[in-house]
C-alpha cells in the first residue's frame, strides 16, 4: 500500500493497543460533523444486485482514541478551532520525534524498530478526519467498568501465565502465534499499521477481508440463523441484513479466547455499515453480560485507499516465535551454567 506523508494530513493512527487514556491526540477539521439532517439528496452507488456498493479497499486508521481522555468529561466533539490546534501540535510532535530518532548507523543506539523507515509510522498513514474526542460515543465516552467475574477471569489468566510467559507457544499472545491480530474483531478497530481492509460483495453476501491476517468474514445478508452454539470461532459467526442503505451485522459464537477487552464467549457484537459521501460510517455496539453491566457503542469512519491489499503471510514468516522461544531457552541455559558454576 502507498502511505502518503503530507504535512496537511498529519494524523495519528490509533493503534489498537493504545486503548487507554492518552493525551488528546490531533483532531482535524471534521468531515463527520455534517448535520444529520443534510438536505442534499445523495444516494450511494449500488451493486448490480441493487444494494449499496461498499466494495474496495478501505482504511479505518484514525487519530481518535477509543476512550475519551478523562479531563474532557462529557465533551463529545472538539470545535474546529480546537481540532486545528491539536492537529498543529501533533504535527510538531511527530516532526520532533522523527528528528530525535535519528541515530548513527552502526551504533547500538541505531538498533531500534522504526516504523517510519518502512512507511508504517502513524504520521505516514492516510486517515479520515474526525472531530470526535473518542471513538466510543455518548456522554461517558469510555468502556463501562468491568464486572467482577470478568476481572477474575482476566486475573486468573494472568496468574496462570505468570512465570511461564516464554515456556511455549501457548504462553504467547494470539497475535504472536498468528492466530488473530485482535483488531479484526469484530468489532473492527484500526490496526497499529496497515489498517487496511477490503470489502467484496456478491449476491446475498458481503465479505470483509483484513490485511492482517488475511482473515475474511463472509457475511450472508439473508438474516439466516447463527451457527449451533457448540461451534465457536475466533471471529465469531456473522449474520447480516439490510435496513435501508445500512448493512446490519450480528455476531455471536465467539471463543472464550477471543477476549475482546477482556470479554468472554458471550460477547455479542452488532455492527452497522452506512455509506456516506466520504466513505463508510462504521458503528458498533458491544454487549457481554459476563463482562460489562451495559452495552457500549463506538463509531469509526472509513475512507477508501488506492491499490490492492498485499498478502500478509503471518504464519509463513513467523520468525518471531522461533526467535522468542530460542532466546528464552538460551537465557535459561546461560543462567543454569552460571548457577552450577556458583555451587561448584
Amino acid at each position, binding site marked *: 500500500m502507498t502511505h502518503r506523508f503530507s504535512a496537511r494530513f498529519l494524523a495519528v493512527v490509533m493503534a489498537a493497543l493504545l486503548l487507554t487514556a492518552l493525551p488528546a491526540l490531533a483532531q482535524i477539521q471534521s468531515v463527520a460533523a455534517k448535520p444529520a439532517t443534510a438536505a442534499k439528496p445523495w444516494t450511494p452507488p449500488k451493486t448490480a444486485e441493487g444494494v449499496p456498493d461498499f466494495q474496495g479497499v478501505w482504511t479505518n486508521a484514525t487519530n481518535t482514541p477509543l476512550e475519551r481522555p478523562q479531563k474532557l468529561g462529557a465533551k463529545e466533539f472538539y470545535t474546529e478551532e480546537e481540532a486545528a490546534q491539536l492537529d498543529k501540535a501533533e504535527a510538531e510532535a511527530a516532526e520532533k520525534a522523527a528528528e530525535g530518532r535519528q541515530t548513527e548507523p552502526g551504533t547500538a543506539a541505531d538498533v531500534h524498530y522504526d516504523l517510519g523507515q518502512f512507511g508504517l509510522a502513524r504520521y505516514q498513514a492516510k486517515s479520515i478526519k474526525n472531530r470526535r474526542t473518542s471513538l466510543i460515543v455518548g456522554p461517558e465516552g469510555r468502556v463501562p467498568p468491568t464486572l467482577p467475574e470478568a476481572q477474575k477471569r482476566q486475573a486468573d489468566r494472568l496468574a496462570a501465565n505468570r512465570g511461564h510467559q516464554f515456556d511455549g507457544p501457548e504462553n504467547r499472545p494470539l497475535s504472536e502465534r498468528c492466530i488473530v491480530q485482535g483488531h479484526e474483531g469484530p468489532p473492527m478497530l484500526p490496526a497499529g499499521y496497515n489498517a487496511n481492509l477490503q470489502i467484496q460483495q456478491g449476491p446475498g453476501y458481503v465479505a470483509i477481508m483484513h490485511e492482517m491476517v488475511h482473515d475474511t468474514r463472509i457475511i450472508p445478508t439473508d438474516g439466516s440463523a447463527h451457527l449451533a452454539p457448540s461451534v465457536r470461532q475466533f471471529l465469531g459467526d456473522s449474520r447480516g441484513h439490510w435496513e435501508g442503505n445500512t448493512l446490519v451485522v450480528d455476531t455471536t459464537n465467539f471463543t472464550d479466547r477471543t477476549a475482546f477487552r477482556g470479554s468472554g464467549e458471550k460477547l455479542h457484537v452488532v455492527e452497522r455499515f452506512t455509506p456516506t459521501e466520504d466513505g463508510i460510517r462504521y458503528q458498533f455496539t458491544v454487549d457481554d453480560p459476563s463482562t460489562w453491566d451495559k452495552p457500549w457503542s463506538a463509531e469509526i469512519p472509513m475512507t477508501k485507499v488506492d491499490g490492492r491489499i498485499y498478502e500478509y503471510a503471518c504464519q509463513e514468516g513467523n520468525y518471531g516465535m*522461533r526467535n522468542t522461544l530460542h532466546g528464552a531457552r538460551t537465557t535459561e541455559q546461560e543462567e543454569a551454567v552460571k548457577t552450577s558454576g556458583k555451587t561448584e
Partner: protein
Amino acid sequence: MAVPAAAQAQYRAPRTADGKPNLNGIWQAMNTANWDIRPHAAAQGPVLSLGAQFSIPPGIGVVEGDEIPYLPAAAAKQKENFAKRLTLDPEVKCYLPGVPRATYMPYPFQIVQSAKTIMLVYEYAGGVRTVYMDSNSKAPADSWMGWSNGHWEGETLVVDVTSLNEDTWFDRAGDHHSDALHVVERYTARSADTLNYEATIEDSKTFSRPWKISMPLYRHVEKNAQLLEYKCPEFAEEVLYGPLRKKPLASK
C-alpha cells in the same frame, strides 16, 4: 470457437445482474489430488499409528496425460521431497497452499463475485485471493497466493496467476515448482451445481513443457452451507516449535 458436432452443447450458466456467468457459491473438489495429483494406488500413510484412518486413498489422477514433465534434476527433487514430506510439506506447517493446490485442498472455498473483482476465499488456513478483472497489473513482490488478473472468455473465467513464490507444493507427494511458476486457471460452469476447473502450469526451471490439470468442482448444496474457521497455526505449533519448549508436551 468451433464446437465439434459430436461434443456436448456448452452449458450456459445463469447470469449475474451484470450479465456474466454466475460462479458465486461454495465449491469443493472431490478427489485425492491433494494427496497426489498423479494416478496412484492406495498406500500406507506417513503416520503409522493412525493406521487406516490416515493412509493414502487411491486416485485416477488429475494430470492430463498422467505424466508431469519434470526436468531430470526436478524429478530427483520430487523423490527427495516425498521421502522427507512430513518435514517439508508446507501443509503440515499450516502454510498457505498457493495456486492451484488451494483449489483441491479437502476443504470448501467460496467464490464471491462482482463485476470488477472476484474474491476466492479458502477455508484452509483462511487463504484468500482477489481476481481483478480486466487488469494487467504486475505484483510488486512474490506471495504465497500469487497475483491474479482475470477476464471472461465466453462462459469461462480465465485467471492469470503470476508472482507465486517457490515455497508451495502441488500435493502431499512432493510435487514442486520454482519461482518461475505461471498458472492459468479456467473456471467454467458445466451444470447448475458443478464447475469444470483447469489449470495450465508453466515453469521452465522445473518442467520441460507446460502441462495441465483438470477436475470438476462440486457445489455445496446443503441449506446454510458456509465456510467455517480453520485457523491451523496452533495445530502446527508442536511441529514447528516443539523442540523449543521449556518442557516437552506431556502427551502428543
